[in-house]
């Protein structure tokens, strides 16, 4: 046992950009890919990693004039850089859990289907990061609380596995509603973050239904999208937001232009470098899907667990996405929020399309549910920033903990629970 852990430790110490290419190469070989094909996938992932750390530097550097301004003010203000789900996913993928979790979860899922415990086959390997993000937060929390390496690692792993099993069950439950509302037969959703959105969405819609007057509001945003739809382009949005932030923090013209253009550049570059990670994972993910499908045969009724991206065509969700940008920025000024929304702004469509589920196409309910989701997300992301920054440093993405980072996904229930545990243990 101790031997295995020291081996894992050695590989981890090499850093994510080194060990993940090795891991993906091996995983590809296991699923029957050719050696050089597998090696290419692995090396792409390495390129993605190095690319991400450069881009995060750019993003954090771009934000620094604003953060310096707020830090000098003392209390409150925006002191946290929003690295978005993109940055958070990259951090999760570069922890040692990526190495262990993927094969364990794949095999576990296969066994649970055979036992007819679940009908969900989650072969969307990329999104496994949601689960082991919780693992790695748990691991760091326990380490900070003074717990030894091995138990901390094992408990972290168990947190991830437990979340994975819960998600499979939730996905079973969601399947009929998801398939009908979004017209996606044979599938279900295995993004754990979507479930807190649906929880909030469900409560908000229930409450609105009870309030006379509110339940009759009927909105139409078509005219707005026709006029301002083109402004929704990410680079333009980030540029405008950069200018806004510069004005708020009283920057001079040079700083304003530098900040706005740098931030916009970072946001445009981010998907390209993370895309490299993804390109490395696609063949492995496809091979895994075929591998398991073949071995399960046709005796099992299966729903394919997919990324939330599949429901993003929802017409109401699309209609609401653009208007949520100014609303989300307004929400960020509420007390307690220290993360200025940046990388997250392009992802609002995930929230609106999820929130149209229980709103049943009602725009007002969708907007209100989304606003509550955003509020919850920004509050928790801000609260967890010191912890996430620590993990970012450990993962080797940022050089020191002097600038705080955070982003979407850390507000998922299992991450919040382990963070709360850490607070109780006075670990952070």
């Amino acid at each position, binding site marked *: 046992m101790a031997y295995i852990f020291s081996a894992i430790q050695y590989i981890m110490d090499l850093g994510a950009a080194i060990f993940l290419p090795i891991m993906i190469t091996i995983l590809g070989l296991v699923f029957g890919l050719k050696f050089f094909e597998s090696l290419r996938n692995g090396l792409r992932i390495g390129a993605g990693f190095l690319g991400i750390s450069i881009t995060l530097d750019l993003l954090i550097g771009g934000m620094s004039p604003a953060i310096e301004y707020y830090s000098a003010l003392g209390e409150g203000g925006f002191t946290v850089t929003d690295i978005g*789900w*993109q940055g958070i996913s990259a951090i999760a993928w570069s922890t040692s859990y990526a190495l262990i979790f993927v094969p364990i979860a794949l095999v576990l899922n296969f066994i649970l289907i055979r036992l007819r415990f679940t009908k969900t086959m989650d072969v969307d390997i*990329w*999104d496994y990061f949601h689960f082991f993000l919780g693992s790695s937060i748990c691991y760091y929390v326990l380490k900070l609380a003074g717990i030894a390496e091995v138990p901390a690692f094992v408990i972290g792993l168990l947190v991830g596995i437990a979340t994975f099993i819960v998600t499979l069950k939730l996905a079973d439950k969601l399947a009929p509603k998801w398939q009908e509302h*979004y*017209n*996606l*037969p*044979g*599938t279900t959703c295995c993004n754990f973050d979507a479930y807190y959105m649906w929880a909030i969405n469900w409560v908000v819609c229930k409450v609105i239904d009870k309030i006379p007057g509110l339940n009759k509001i009927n909105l139409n945003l078509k005219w707005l*999208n026709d006029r301002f*739809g*083109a*402004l*929704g*382009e*990410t680079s*333009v949005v980030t540029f405008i937001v950069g200018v806004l932030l510069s004005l708020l923090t009283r920057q001079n013209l040079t700083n304003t232009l530098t900040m706005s253009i740098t931030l916009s550049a970072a946001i445009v570059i981010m*998907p390209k470098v*993370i*895309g490299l990670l*993804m*390109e490395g994972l*696609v*063949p492995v*993910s*496809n091979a895994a*899907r075929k591998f398991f*499908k073949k071995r399960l045969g046709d005796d099992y009724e299966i729903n*394919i667990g*997919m*990324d*939330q*991206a*599949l*429901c*993003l*065509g*929802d*017409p109401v969700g*699309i209609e609401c*996405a*653009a208007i949520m940008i100014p609303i989300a920025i307004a929400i960020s000024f509420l007390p307690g929020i220290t993360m200025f929304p940046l990388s997250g702004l*392009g*992802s*609002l*469509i*995930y929230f609106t399309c999820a929130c149209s589920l229980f709103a049943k196409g009602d725009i007002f309910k969708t907007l209100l549910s989304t606003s509550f989701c955003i509020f919850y997300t920004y509050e928790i992301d801000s609260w967890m920033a010191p912890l996430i920054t620590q993990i970012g440093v450990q993962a080797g993405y940022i050089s020191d903990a002097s600038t705080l980072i955070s982003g979407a996904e850390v507000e998922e229930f299992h991450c919040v629970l382990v963070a709360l545990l850490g607070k109780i243990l006075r670990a952070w």
Partner: protein
Amino acid sequence: MRELKVLVACGGGIVTSTYVSSEIEEIARKVNVKAHVTKTQLMNLPSVAKDYDVVFVASKYHEEIGVPVYSATGVVTGINEDEERENIKKVLIELSQKQD
């Protein structure tokens, strides 16, 4: 033959669109259609779609953006994937012939 400009969109222009674009690149190679595939975020579609010949989305998308839009959910989920590959093949061939 001019290169076909293909745009693929999903939520963040990273994950699911990579599944779709790798499929499209492979299909294009098989049927000898030169295609340059670009990935983007769904929210960017209304402003960038006009620079492309065809758009594939991972979800069901019903908005009018002035360019033919096709759903490619099947190649991601594996449900009816063969049928959908045939469909993509047909679209790519038709579009490339139109350009000649």
